[in-house]
Each structure stands twice: as C-alpha cells, then as structure tokens.
C-alpha cells in the first residue's frame, strides 16, 4: 500500500497509542513510549511487522505510545495507513490484510 497523505489514528489516552503516517522514502519510525525501557523493542517490531503485512514500503511513521497492548498498536497502525490512502471508508479487508 502507498501512503498518499498524512493520516492519524489513536489518542494520547493511557493504554492507547497515537500513530501518524506521512509519505516518505523507505521506512522511518519515530517512537516514544511510556514503557520504552521494557517494551520499546517489542513495539517497534509490532509496528514494522504490521507495515510489512500491509505492504507499506515507503512511509514516515510516528508512534506515541501510552502503554497500549500489542493488539491496540496493530489496530492503530492499520487504521492510520488505511486512512492515508482513503481506504478506511468501506470494504476494509477484515481477516485479510487487517487481522
């Protein structure tokens, strides 16, 4: 998938994460987390895996995590990516690219 315009998903509430994607060349991740020392590595892995699954190769992505669980992080990344290319309105591939 191609990131066409900047898009945001999520909030800064506790146990959530705010994910912002923007068009970019290659993958570049900016990560801030309230549980950085213990889960920073795993959050990074989750974000990159999710992007890979969605076939996103070029993207600047920023994640501000407030202690979200893995499932939340995945959902926020998926949502931001779908919004960025206008695919979040309908026909979301539940069980396909989105799981």
């Amino acid at each position, binding site marked *: 998938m191609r990131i066409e315009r900047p898009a945001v998903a999520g909030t800064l509430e506790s146990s959530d994460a705010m994910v912002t994607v923007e068009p970019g060349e290659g993958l570049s991740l900016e990560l801030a987390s309230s*549980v*950085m*020392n213990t889960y920073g590595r795993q959050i990074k892995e989750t974000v990159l895996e999710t992007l890979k699954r969605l076939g996103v190769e070029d993207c600047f992505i920023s994640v501000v995590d407030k*202690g979200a669980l893995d499932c939340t992080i995945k959902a926020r990344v998926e949502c931001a990516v779908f919004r960025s290319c206008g695919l979040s309105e309908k026909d979301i591939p539940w069980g396909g690219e989105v799981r």
Partner: protein
Amino acid sequence: MKNAVGRDIPEFLLKDGKEVYQGKNYMDGKFIKKASPTTRRYEKPQESKIVGTIADALKLCGAKSGMTFSFHHHLRDGDYVVNMVMKAAIEELGLEDMTIAATSLGAAHDPIAEYIEQGKVVGIQTSGIRGRMGEVVSAGKLKTPAVIRSHGGRPRAIEAGEVHIDIAFIAAPTSDCVGNCRGIGGKSDCGSMGYAMTDARYADRVVVVTDCLVDFPNMPASIEAIDVDAVVVTDSIGDPKKIASAAARISQNPRDLMMAEDVAKVIASTPYFRDGFSFQTGVGGPSLAANLFLEKFMDEKGIKMGWSIGGICGPMVELLKKGKVGKIIDVQDFDLDAVRSINRTPGHYEMSASQYADPANKGAFVNKLDFVVLAALEIDTDFNVNVLTGSDGVLRGAPGGHPDTAAGSKCCVIVTPLIRGRMATVCEHVVTVTTPGDCVDVLVTDYGIAVNPLRPDLIECLDRAGIKHVPIEELKEKAYSIVGRPDELQWEDRVVAVLEARDGTILDVVRKIKPYTAD
C-alpha cells in the same frame, strides 16, 4: 554479596558493621546503644524563642556547611517548609554539602532537585522520593547514594545514631512562643505530628516553623517546648488544599470493589478475624474499599474491631464514631475528616513513628497487628513487593510503613490489579525489593488470589472457606499473556540509592538506568 532476597549488594556498602538482609526478625534480641544529641541549656528564664526569619534561626542554631537537616511530611504535597529552609540555608547563608533527612519527600519538593544538580545538596535520606527529585537522583546527580528507609526504619536509624540530625525543622500548624506545637487549631492543619517526634528528641537543635502563633501554653503538645531552640513565624507553612484532601472517597470502580470484597473474604476466613481484631489499611482504591466489605462481615459475625493504626482517613473515623472500632492510633492524617477527629473524637489518639513501626524499640504497634491491607507497584513470584521504583527503574514511590506493617502483622494482604496499562504488576522479578516476600502472605488481584506457600495455615483457611486461589506463577503468566514479556532493564554500575530493610540491613540498591534504544 547476595542477600536473603537474592539481591547483589556491592561490597563497598558493607562497612561499619552494615550487613545484607538476612530475613525477617534477624536482629531480634540484639542490643542497641542509643545515640544522644548535644543540646543547648536554656537555664535563664526566657520570655519567648521567636526569631525573625528562617535565616536568623539557622544562625542561632549554628548552621554550617555539611550539616544534616531533618523534616517531616505531614503537610504532604502542600509543604512549603523544606523548600523555605533549604533556600535560606543555601541562598542566604551560602551553605553547601547539605544532607536532607526527611520522613518523606514528594511533588512539593521539586525545587530541591535544582540544589542537587548544583551539588549543594549532597545527601538525601527519606522514605518517599518522587517527581523531579526522583529523576535527578536516578540520573546519578546526587553525590552520595540516597538512603531509603521505611517509617519504622527511620526512627530506628536515628535512635541508633546512624543518622545524626544537626537541626530538625518542625512544620507546625500551631505553636506558642516557646515551641509547644500541635497539628490542629491553625490554618494549615495536618492533625497528627507523629513522624516529627523522634526527630525533635534526637536532633541537636530544633526549629519550629509555624503560620499560626497561639497563646502559651499550646496543650496538649505534639512537639514539646523542652526540645525546641527557636520558633519562626511565617505567612504560610503550606497549601491547605494539598495537605489534606477534602475527604478520602471510597472507590466506585467495580474492579476495585471486586478486589476489596475478595480482601474482606480472605480476612474473614482466618482465625484472627475475631472480636477485638486489629487492622490497618492504605488509602488506595481497593485497600480503602476493603473497609466497606469488612464492616459487612463484622456485622454478620457480630464482632467489632479492637483498634486500627496507620495513616488515617475519614472512613476509619466513621467506624470509630459508629462504635465499630474501639481505638484509632494515628501517625498521619490523609483527609480533613481525620484531621478534625484526632485528639477530639474519644478513642482517636496520636502516636510517634517509633511507636508505630520501629523494629528496634520494645513495643511498636505493628507487632500487635492482625491484618494489614497494602498496595503494590509490582509483586514477584517470591512475593517480594516493590513500591519504590517504576517499571522504567526511576525512583517514584515510597516504602512508607509497607515493610513495617507487612513484617509485624499476622496476615499481610497485598491488593493490586494484575496489570496497569502495559505493566505487569505480578512479575518474575520486581525492579526493587522494598518489602521482602517472607513478610507477605496473600495476594489479591482482579484475576485471582494467591497465597504465599510459606503460609500453609492460611491456604487451609481459604480452602475451608471455599475461596479459590492459584499459584502466583499462574497469575504472572496470565499477566504476561496480556502485556507480553518485558525486556530486562539495563543498568549502569553506579548505585544511586540504597534501600535499607527496616532492621538496618541492606535489602536492595537502585542503580543508574542506561539510556534506552529500541535497536
């Protein structure tokens, strides 16, 4: 050297007779030689001890660089006195190399972080350390490791001469002109002044700071004029709104209530739940709510609580007024209902920190305690509890009376949600051991109850009452299945804080945290 809770204590700390933690009651039966202060004689009749400013009081008391000043934390997050005194000492008198020995420090004391960074404050001894101060100490900016003690460990250390207080500062809601102080009757009332009592008796010099001067004699006094050198009257010693909350409210959160009910069930299943039993609880959500359910069980069984101790708040005072608890003995007050009640409601008494929890005196209240209900930041599969460091390894808590009441009580119940955000409360190894597992008996979480295998008698009680419980490992695995297994924290060698067990042995150390990269 490894101690009894498996923590590696660096050799350089084991000097002058300091030992590593050896287990509960290791010091029982040993003797201590009590320290004695060097105090000035006031033989000549004196009309008043009032001096103009804090700086005047410091000069009168011969304040010098390198001294240890002590403070107490009854004014909690509203306290102005620590900052006021340190500012006068450092900025007006130009003193350096100062040590602050406080019963606790909190959010009100962020300005002290600046003096630590400037190298003017070189030592911190406290129970609580939070906010900016926690961050700068964790970053290794304090010249000597901070020493963290429980509320009972501190008076023990003072009495044993391990902490020598040069000047003690008493934040007094009311005082007369010679220094008889009370915690009530002024505009910044805090109720009990229990934590300050040992300080006043063992410091060389004692300065009272008050914002409400009352007629002599201010009786019955919590701190007596016989121990006081000088009285300073200022506009305000604290922000009343932050000293005592309007009223500690019992949580309506269904998860808290569910856990609180389980706590009460566990308590009611033990043989210690009989007429005249004794009880302490914290003011955290589920701990405080346990009061509510306990009352139900007491009514059902037709029994009353004999006495309750600790930090006191409204709901406990309510029980006293209803005649459901015989006496409250109070070291600190958390809300206005408790502040207004102490020494006024019949049966509501004040006590010193030593009387409350000191393991080296001859009769601390905690040693007669049946139940204590406590919270935890983390608890590991050996039942060791951490209430000091966050999951990022930064100092942001306080052992308080936790280790003292856990050790003294017959049944110590820890109540905590299994996870908080992405943090597993039940974990493999706590970041810092503040209360050793051999003092903790039952864990109640929202996902189940676990009993320490060291207490087969309690396991039997729960089984007999039909209360389901699981091995603590199961709770840990449940937590990790939700949040994932955390990476180990990465530390540098530098020790930034030493955690003393209540008996004075070394329970754990906190090291400087390594900057983290996700790569």
